[in-house]
């Protein structure tokens, strides 16, 4: 069987990739995808520890986390669509209406 360290390392690498994408990319869709990668890294941790401790709660939480991520993406894409209609761009450098 695969030791738990491998799953945690995979999760850490995925999280780092997502954080890098969210911090450096200027395209809003790519940033949303990076955030999803980070959420999935957390889900891998949930499922790995759930199996490691033989407790089903982690997998249930992973399911709920996936549902919340789906809701978040639905609202995020709708906001993006609205932004594209009003500002005609999805470049994060040009979207500054919430900056101070």
């Amino acid at each position, binding site marked *: 069987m695969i030791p738990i360290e491998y799953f945690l390392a995979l999760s*850490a690498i995925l999280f780092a990739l997502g954080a*890098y994408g969210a911090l450096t990319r200027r395209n809003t869709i790519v940033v949303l995808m990076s955030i999803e990668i980070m959420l999935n890294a957390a889900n891998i941790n949930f499922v790995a520890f759930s199996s490691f401790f033989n407790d089903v709660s982690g997998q249930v939480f992973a399911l709920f986390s996936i549902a919340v991520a789906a809701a978040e993406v639905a609202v995020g894409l709708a906001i993006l669509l609205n932004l594209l209609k009003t500002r005609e761009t999805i470049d994060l450098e040009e979207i500054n209406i919430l900056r101070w």
Partner: protein
Amino acid sequence: MNRHTIASIIAVAGLLVIVLGSLLVVNWHAGDISQIGTEKVGNAVFDDYGFTFLVIGLVMFTAMLGGVFLAKEDEK
């Protein structure tokens, strides 16, 4: 490569080093990844987390309504 990208790379590399280093340092007690059947997960969702399941459904419904409201075309 601008300063922002370099700072991001340094931050992410630092995070990765800390997390992977702590993974190597910690002595995980012996135990294997075990198989948990989907039947147990389904029972837990409906028996132990029934109310949470309903709340998640409400959240998704609200998100769907919000998404449709935000994305709808303006009537002219």
